[in-house]
């Protein structure tokens, strides 16, 4: 009988003995949850004369908003871009396993692929929905079965030939057919799409940026040879993100800083923040470069794993698709060579590395994996913070930022 029945009779949980990341700082306070949302306990006390049904002792740990990974290509042997028969099962596996890393929602990322792959993924998305619906937690928000899916990140195929990186050249596309029509032809549909990475120097891209923005889709610039003014034009048309800064773009040059120059550009519309993805695994971005970006524009830094199929697999040799991969420590090499085959970083590792390498506060490191990606996606009113009324997705960490437990909608979904 704790809460006033006239408001809700759902049970209330009070997480005690913790420090909460709120308003950009760690505060000694309790976290209250009812019906999957963070509750304002003062209103509960005075309006409802209610109190908690259950107290959970957090052992003096840190409670931070759940991590959001907006760029993850797969892991645990699963490649989201491979049209395997059971991709929904694969996606569910990754969604479940990344709970260990404190990730409570993510954007499965598809690299440049032939059109039939995109259609396939879209079809399986619906399968995923039907599989994971639980009585009280909708699949979009995740739950005990795994981290929530915020929408797909489509990286390519509308990208630069020169900066395609590992994307297969034969599937790259132009926007010659009239912009959005080209996208729909390749992707099939734009439902469930959260982010599109494209190269702004491709003719016709500005109009596409504007149209995607109108549909509420985040446009990211990457795999591009754009100069700064092209990048600024794309931003003025609505682009807000930079895909893995420094990687797959022109290197910084003082007379044309390229896309990197957006971090300090004065052509960014007022009240707009440019965000940039950063693979802070200590391998894909030199710590000095990481510090340059962070110090120039701390509010825009978004930690991404950009993890590939091999993430989460044990050390040793693995056959993944057409490729043999050798995992040694934090490196994934093409077997028999010293060529990096992609990131196998986990989000919690990235947070720790970023904090150590940049010397930033714990708060700033945690927000780069939670608040900033939520702001990027325009969902900070419900995710990425521990403000009252938002989703109770959070992670319990120790002072070394190791994940002790992960919660979605107030329920423990993983624990060490």
């Amino acid at each position: 009988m704790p809460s006033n029945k006239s408001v809700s009779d759902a049970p209330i949980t009070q997480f005690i003995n913790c420090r909460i990341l709120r308003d950009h700082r760690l505060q000694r306070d309790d976290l209250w949850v009812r019906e999957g949302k963070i509750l304002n306990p003062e209103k509960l006390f005075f309006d409802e004369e209610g109190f908690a049904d259950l107290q959970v002792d957090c052992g003096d740990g840190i409670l931070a908003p759940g991590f959001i990974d907006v760029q993850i290509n797969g892991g645990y042997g699963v490649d989201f871009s491979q049209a395997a028969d059971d991709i929904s099962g694969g996606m569910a596996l990754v969604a479940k396993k990344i709970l260990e890393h404190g990730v409570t929602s993510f954007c499965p990322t598809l690299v440049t692929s032939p059109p039939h792959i995109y259609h396939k993924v879209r079809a399986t998305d619906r399968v995923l929905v039907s599989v994971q619906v639980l009585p009280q937690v909708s699949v979009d928000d995740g739950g005990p079965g795994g981290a929530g899916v915020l929408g797909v990140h489509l990286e390519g195929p509308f990208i630069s030939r020169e900066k395609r990186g590992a994307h297969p050249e034969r599937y790259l596309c132009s926007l010659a057919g009239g912009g959005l029509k080209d996208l729909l032809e390749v992707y099939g549909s734009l439902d469930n799409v959260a982010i599109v990475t494209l190269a702004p120097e491709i003719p016709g891209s500005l109009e596409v940026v504007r149209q995607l923005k109108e549909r509420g889709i985040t446009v990211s610039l990457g795999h591009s040879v754009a100069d700064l003014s092209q990048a600024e034009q794309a931003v003025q048309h609505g682009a807000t993100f930079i895909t893995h800064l420094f990687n797959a773009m022109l290197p910084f040059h003082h007379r044309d800083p390229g896309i990197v120059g957006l971090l300090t550009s004065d052509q960014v519309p007022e009240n707009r923040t440019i965000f940039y993805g950063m693979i802070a695994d200590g391998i894909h971005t030199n710590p000095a470069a990481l510090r340059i970006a962070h110090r120039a524009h701390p509010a825009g830094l978004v930690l991404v794993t950009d993890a590939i199929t091999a993430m989460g697999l044990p050390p040793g040799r693995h056959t993944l698709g057409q490729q043999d991969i050798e995992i040694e420590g934090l490196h994934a090499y093409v077997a028999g060579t010293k060529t990096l085959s992609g990131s196998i970083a986990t989000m919690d590792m990235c947070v720790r590395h970023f904090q150590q390498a940049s010397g930033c506060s714990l708060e700033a490191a945690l927000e780069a994996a939670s608040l900033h990606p939520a702001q990027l996606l325009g969902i900070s009113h419900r995710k990425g913070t521990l403000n009252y009324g938002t989703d109770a997705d959070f992670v319990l960490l120790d002072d070394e930022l190791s994940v002790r437990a992960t919660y979605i909608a107030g329920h423990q979904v993983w624990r060490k």
Partner: protein
Amino acid sequence: MRLVILEDYDLASEWAAKYIRNRIVQARPSADRYFTLGLPTGSTPLGCYKKLIEYYKNGDISFKYVKTFNMDEYVGLPRDHPESYHSYMWNNFFKHIDINPANAHILDGNAADLQKECDTFEQKIADAGGIDLFVGGIGPDGHIAFNEPGSSLVSRTRVKTLAQDTILANARFFGNDLSKVPTMTLTVGVGTVMDAREVMILITGAHKAFALYKAIEEGVNHMWTVSAFQQHPRTIFVCDEDATLELRVKTVKYFKGLMHVHNKLVDPMHSVKDYKD
């Protein structure tokens, strides 16, 4: 009247907290017999609340069977405004302890009918069987609760317009913008506090020294409303050295000489642990 003089603010706060603790614990409150406590806001009682929270966390005291009645609240200030006394009580005391929200009473300064709200508050105090211990602080002009100078010494809970002094003093809490400072409050009356079985008044700091002098060394005077408690049979003033600066040496020496007696009120300290069967 008792006057308890401690070295500094921290010791005065601790002494007051120990006293409250002993009174509650020794009353052995239960579902049939609650302990009723009157509570103040402001900067003076903060240290005392901190200590009480510490005792609660150590398991020495419980507020499960305690009913509280706050002295006052601003009129028209949103309840969740950081300067409201609801916010003050939540942040500095209630959120840290085990009190049942239904037992924590604060006047609603946003009630549609303010006088009715005040009358209801008085009724609730009566229904609770009166107040066992009313803890208060005072302003530099000797006001207790918001009973500004000139308030009737037999006043009851009511709407009160603030004195210009108080409004000016409060401006610092509202961004130094006078237009934002509430000008009216709901407050218990001097008579309401006088009805309590026991009253404890906390007075610390040199800026309160003149008020303490007026409270205890001069006559009962409605221009220094706290002086009314000279006529209360059980009143304790708890103060620090700074607050005694305007008192006569004779007065200070007399009460300091009684400290070994007064300290028996807080030593030994009682704990609910002692009463666990």
